[in-house]
């Protein structure tokens, strides 16, 4: 049986790996990334199709971006963001990091020169491990914000949350991540 050749088969051959990596950087899971590539190519077969305005890769990446955001939104329904009760702009919680008087329990340490830090494979490996250890709802919004570089307004729209909720989630993600890095990376240095 010979498969009918379609442009999508060529795209899979030419851009499949790139699309996979793009998805992997955001979804952090090989299977989810594979599924997103498949959904993207299938979506590319619907509707009016490729108009030739952008390069196929750019066009496909645009579709994939929406698939990634769709995935985050679906996950959101399965594991909803906890609605933080009574969280106001000035009361983000965080009892595990601060004493009652609002001072740090363990003050952050200097991480040294940022330039050289980012060159270190070990630092980046631990960063990944720490991201995987974040609660899923925090990791999701944090990846959307920092890797996808989605602005806050779009995040709120896509995930259907309030700006305050988004700020609190991002704050918690950052607090968790830096704590994890400090424990696992400074300890190893």
């Amino acid at each position: 049986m010979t498969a009918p050749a379609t442009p999508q088969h060529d795209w899979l051959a030419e851009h499949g790996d790139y699309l996979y990596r793009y998805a992997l950087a955001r979804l952090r899971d090989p299977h989810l990334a594979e599924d997103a590539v498949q959904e993207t190519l299938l979506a590319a077969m619907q509707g009016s199709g490729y108009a030739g305005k952008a390069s196929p890769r750019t066009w496909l990446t645009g579709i994939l971006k929406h698939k990634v955001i769709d995935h985050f939104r679906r996950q959101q329904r399965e594991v909803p963001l906890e609605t933080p009760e009574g969280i106001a702009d000035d009361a983000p919680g965080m009892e595990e990091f601060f004493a009652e008087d609002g001072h740090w329990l363990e003050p952050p340490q200097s991480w040294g020169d940022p330039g050289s830090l980012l060159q270190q494979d070990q630092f980046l490996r631990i960063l990944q491990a720490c991201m995987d250890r974040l609660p899923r709802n925090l990791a999701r919004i944090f990846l959307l914000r920092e890797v996808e570089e989605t602005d806050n307004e779009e995040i709120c729209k896509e995930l259907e949350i309030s700006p305050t909720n988004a700020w609190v989630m991002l704050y918690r993600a950052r607090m968790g991540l830096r704590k994890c890095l400090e424990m696992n990376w400074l300890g190893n240095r």
Partner: protein
Amino acid sequence: MLDCRHATFLASQSLEKRLPFRQRMALRLHLMMCDACTQFTRQLHLLRTALGQFGRQVENDENLVLSKQARERIAQAVTAQARQNDEARRNPNHDSTN
């Protein structure tokens, strides 16, 4: 006076939007006096840079490729979809459940 807990929240928020004048001043004043929160703020900026770099690194890492199985599975799904589209074109009145 701003305490560290509130200062860190404002520092994180300042990565998302321009803070209102009063909060901005309060944060600046706090950071002038607080080494821990100054380190914290540096770490936040570093995290932002690192995540961006991390994303680009994964996108450009040519060792990360679709597995053979995944590639075949996707090719099959594309083939199946192409057939279905063809049939739908040939029988425009046929109600295809999509």
